[in-house]
């Protein structure tokens, strides 16, 4: 299997080269050097080359512009012959919402190239492109991604929007800096008797929060590499940019958090993506590459996603600036003359809280009980997520992902909870995955050791959830222990989970130079400090050498996902004459796809249009039976059938058209003769 992957990668490269030679004479940077991360200009060139070589089945469109004016590219792949593309089920692949997650762009680009190169020879690909569609938006955040190619690596996740992150009346005035001129913005550790951190005894390169319960003592503070340029007591709390685009969508939007933007969909990029998907309601499934996950670890039976795993060194530095937005809250109990500051109530007219009729007295809201939006996957949909997740691990070999973020405001969550389709996210790689040449990775070599099973990076289990039972035994290390559920439904929130050790082991094993060793530095205000830590982009991107292999496996996975979509058909029809111009029409409508025409939540959320069955007669000619226009909320997958019948008045010999339209499952028509 692995050898096949590699073989295919080589074949693909060859095919791309071949098609470039035949169709366009422009140089094809992708083919010449597949093992690289593409700058915006290179990505644009690669997309254009790929599309130019397959003009008949692919086109490139700009769905909008980034804040800095870069086109946001979408590549649409479909053979336009036959059913109009807008009526076919489509898979949306979108990536690189987080500026530093450039691997996502590469996987998306690989998918485009894989599908286009394979169209001629691979019947599986051909079938999808002839009858379905693929929409690929490889880089939603080009302004952020471009920083990967800047001389100093910051690892910035946000776009380029000017934002006053600490709300102090000045925007972007205090960025972290590369003080020691090594080309990376990392972190500083400073000996500080009040500091809560200590050198991690398990690996002296790492830091951990001292646990007083275990008799541990801190002694270090950790800051972002930089100086306090705005003299507010915080280092690097308000750098250039912006908005984290995967925090800017509406599901569980983190209101008023600095990186989430001023409001939902405040950004040109996020609005462009939403307008695009809303214009393409035939999108029946969404695959995103990003820093959240529901593929490597499947949702729990309760519908929660796995817990976040973060990088401690990054979180510790972030903690040093957490108070920047609180400075200047004046808690004056007595606010001077006539004070209405906190705690003062000076005019007899106000009898305390909510004294007015406008106050919150025991009033009952009218208009029915309050509803609230779903936050866990509908129980009826979970099996689909579980099955796809299992297939993902099998096809890609990615066993664990790291780091993984909570998905508040992420696009893929919108895709399920509000757009109503199966929607997925994966970092697209992980420190434990199959390699191209062996079935057991170096990373897997330590799967079995105690550190992995019970070690610091494996969070609390999901209580009684026998997560391991759902999976092939031993296939997903750590899965048995569960990757603790998100805090929900009164469950105690698990503590933060850090993946530093595992990340470092992977880097060591793979000989990745991803960690800057601590170096002493004379800081202008802090004095003697040490600068070091993970190199920003190496935390979330695998080495470029892995792109080809991951690209192929993810392209195949995308093709697999597209094969699951619902397909509605008029299975059987029957016309019987009762004499006197009265006819009975019977029809069975079936869904031959694996997925239902709408997930349960697609129905609940009213996001997916019901499947429409319409008989082309004058409504006055229907004497009994179904209405001229009937709807069914969802046709089950894998052969779900609905029967209809009408008794109509008509001229013998006349023809009647029967039409079935499913938003996510295509359309079908039948012509019936009244006889």
């Amino acid at each position, binding site marked *: 299997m692995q050898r096949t992957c590699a073989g295919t990668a080589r074949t693909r490269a060859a095919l791309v080269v071949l098609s470039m030679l035949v169709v366009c004479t422009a140089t094809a940077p992708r083919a010449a050097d597949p093992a690289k991360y593409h700058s915006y200009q290179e990505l644009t060139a690669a997309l254009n080359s790929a599309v130019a070589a397959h003009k008949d089945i692919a086109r490139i469109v700009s769905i909008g512009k980034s804040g800095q004016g870069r086109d946001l590219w979408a590549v649409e792949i479909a053979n336009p012959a036959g059913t109009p593309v807008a009526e076919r089920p489509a898979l949306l692949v979108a990536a690189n919402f987080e500026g530093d997650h450039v691997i996502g762009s590469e996987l998306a680009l690989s998918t485009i190239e894989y599908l286009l190169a394979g169209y001629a020879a691979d019947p599986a690909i051909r079938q999808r492109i002839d009858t379905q569609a693929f929409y690929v938006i490889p880089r939603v955040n080009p302004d952020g991604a471009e920083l990967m190619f800047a001389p100093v690596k910051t690892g910035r996740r946000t776009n380029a929007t000017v934002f006053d992150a600490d*709300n*102090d*009346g000045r925007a972007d005035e205090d960025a972290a800096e590369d003080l020691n001129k090594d080309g990376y913005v990392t972190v500083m550790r400073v000996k500080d008797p009040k500091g809560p951190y200590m050198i991690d005894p398990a690996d002296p390169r790492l830091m951990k929060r001292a646990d007083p319960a275990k008799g541990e003592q801190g002694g270090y503070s950790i800051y972002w590499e930089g100086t306090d340029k*705005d003299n*507010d*007591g915080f280092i690097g709390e308000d750098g250039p940019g912006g908005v984290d685009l995967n925090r800017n969508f*509406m599901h569980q939007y983190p*209101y*008023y958090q*600095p990186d989430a933007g001023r*409001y*939902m*969909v405040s950004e040109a990029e996020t609005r462009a993506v939403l307008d695009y998907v809303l214009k393409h309601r035939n999108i029946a499934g969404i695959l995103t590459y990003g820093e959240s996950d529901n593929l490597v670890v499947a949702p729990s039976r309760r519908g929660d996603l796995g817990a976040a795993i973060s990088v401690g060194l990054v979180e510790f530095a972030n903690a040093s600036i957490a108070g920047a*937005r*609180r*400075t*200047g*809250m*004046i808690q*004056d*109990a*007595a*606010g*001077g*003359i*006539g*004070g*209405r500051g906190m705690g003062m109530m000076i005019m007899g007219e*106000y009898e*305390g*809280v*909510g*004294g*007015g*009729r*406008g*106050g*919150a007295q025991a*009033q*009952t*809201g*009218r*208009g029915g009980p*309050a*509803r*609230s*939006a779903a936050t866990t996957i509908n129980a009826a949909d979970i099996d689909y997520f579980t099955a796809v997740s299992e297939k993902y691990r099998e096809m890609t070999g990615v066993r664990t992902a790291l780091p993984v973020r909570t998905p508040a405001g992420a696009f893929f969550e919108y895709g399920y909870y509000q757009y109503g389709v199966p929607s997925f996210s994966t970092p697209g790689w992980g420190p434990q995955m199959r390699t191209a040449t062996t079935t057991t990775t170096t990373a897997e070599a330590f799967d079995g050791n105690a550190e992995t099973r019970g070690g610091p990076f494996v969070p609390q289990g999901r209580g009684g959830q026998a997560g391991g039972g759902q999976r092939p035994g031993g296939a997903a290390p750590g899965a048995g222990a569960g990757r603790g559920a998100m805090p929900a439904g009164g469950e105690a929130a698990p503590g933060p989970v850090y993946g530093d050790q595992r990340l470092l082991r992977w880097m060591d094993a793979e000989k990745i130079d991803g960690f800057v060793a601590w170096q002493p530095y004379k800081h202008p205000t802090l004095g003697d400090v040490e600068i070091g830590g993970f190199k920003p982009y190496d935390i979330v991107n695998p080495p470029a050498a892995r792109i080809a292999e991951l690209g192929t496996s993810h392209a195949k996975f995308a093709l697999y996902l597209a094969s699951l979509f619902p397909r509605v058909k008029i299975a059987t029809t029957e016309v019987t004459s009762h004499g006197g111009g009265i006819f009975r029409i019977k029809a069975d409508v079936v869904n031959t796809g694996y997925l239902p025409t709408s997930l349960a939540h697609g129905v*609940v*959320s009213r*996001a997916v*249009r*019901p499947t*429409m069955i*319409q008989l082309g007669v*004058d*409504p006055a000619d229907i004497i009994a039976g179904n*209405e*001229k*226009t009937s709807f069914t909320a969802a046709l089950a997958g894998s052969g779900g059938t609905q029967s209809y019948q009408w008794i109509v008045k008509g001229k013998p010999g006349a023809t009647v058209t029967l039409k079935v*339209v499913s938003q996510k499952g295509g359309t079908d028509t039948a012509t019936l003769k009244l006889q």
Partner: protein
Amino acid sequence: MTKTSFKWLVSAGLALAVTVCVAPSTNGQAGGGDRQGAGAQKPPQAKPAPQGQNVQKPWLPENQAPTSERMWKVHLDFNRWHDVAELIADMKTLEKAYPKFLKYQSIGRTYDGRDIPLMTINNPDTGAELSKAAMYIEANVHGNEIQGGEICLYTIWYLMENYGKIDRITKLVNERVFYLLPTVNPDGRDWFMHGPGGNARSSHFPVDDDNDGAVDEDWPADLNGDGVVSQMRKYVGMGNGNMRKTADDPRILEPAPFGKGDYIMVGSEGIDRDGDGRVGEDGPGSYDPNRNWAADWQPNYVQGGSMDYPFQLPEAKAINDFLVAHPNIAGVQSYHNNGGMILRGPGAESVGEYPRTDVVAYDELGRNAERMLPYYRYLVIWSGLYTVHGGFIDWTADGLGVVSFSNELWNNGQYYNSPELKEQQKDPNSPIAPGVANYWFNDNLEFGDQFIDWKEFEHPQFGKVEVGGWKKTYGRVPPRFMTEEMCHRNMAWTLYQADEMPKVQIGETKVERVGENVYKVWVDLTNPKVVPTILAKAAQNAVVPPDLLTVEGRDVQVIAASVVPSKFRPAVQQLIDQQDLKRLVFRNGLPGKTTRTIQYLVKGSGEIALTYTSVKGGKVEKGVTLK
């Protein structure tokens, strides 16, 4: 204040002058004597002239018309409803008459391509727009809720016509900026004004209501061509219906006991335009443009009509872009109809009540609103009206940190507006009893103009029906002859709110030498208005930039800064724990009706400049000498 000083005040028209002249304790009002200023040109109570006698009026100056009435420069109608073109034309007429103060602009286009009209009122002599707190007043987000548009127009007109004539109006225009947007939903307004009626609440973004793939293809129809989409009722024979005509008035149907009914209601006037067997099921809109805002926005299945994402509607986006670009906006009013309410957020209980200090400010404003607006009650949206997610004033309050109200204009209690008539209405046999009161009012005060009598019509699907009912201008909007009062009272309340927007002042300063080149500097910071410079909720959400107090001076070093609990009773002063003491950040601003004293410990000598900057409360400076 003398007449002379009044004239000086008006001609100079300076807000700063007002601040100097008037003690803060008068709550921003010009001194009581001012009112005489305008009145001084009016004669004292004229006694009626003895009949048949040609009386000389020696107190009248030569050639001056003996009028106590004002002469308007611009004449507008406030006894009828304006369509969008008429609103815009009137706004442009006013702009032409008062070019110094008024600026008309279109801030964007609606889905159908109409301009979204906005008027800015600003006196450039008293500072640039963004340097003064602004009151934003809008109306008509629901297309059928039209009358707020007239109030906006009236407000512009009244402020301009009375500037320089009424002191408090002059002062208000000098101190504040006004943004007036008479129709948020011009597409809906014109659909209401010119269309035959039907649902004009929405704007016109295309939505497929009936899931058939076609958009807005089956809208209501004016079948009988009388210009109104009214109701259809059908005579079905005795015993077959659930309604019957009332004994006294055949226009009115009442529920009938089983077996005694001969009528049924068929629904709104309409036909099956798209041939799907259903009547009028997909008209324009059908969403709610007042659920498309970004605070507590919820998807459509939780909050019906919210659309796919906040600010998806071009009207909402244009307005939000404007609001975000004008952080000086410190007050919002969004006019709706009806019911007679002065509403504030939150729209949903789940959002949680506002912090206490914010409630105090809202309550003071809201209670005074009730005093200005008989038949209106001050209520919280979720508890007093119904739950709203993603509403406009929740966005302006929570997302933009602006004190926001929404008036539900017109209460049909105003049809019979005396205690005696209310008492009469309790009698079920009274001609103005609740079930028939509307008909009596229409017959006697509108001369029957608002009701279309039932007429037979042959309907393509339903056979013989009767078409008739109330016109669209009855019920939710006041009778035309009562409109001007509605305009004035509601305007007065928004002007009061505008006056109570924050306004920072630097009061007393004191310098005391404590050592070699070291001084204690006390500075009083006052906000005499009801509204704080930054709402507590806005501070929590970090949606308003903080107030800043800066110290500038050559070679001056600030050793410490603290808040003085009381100037007159020594107590321990809490040090302000900030790194940069020359630029103090007040993240939760200056509360309403408060003077806060800050103490600096300063090393240096000479002049220092103290500057307090508040995005919503203005900017003030004062120099102090260290000696």
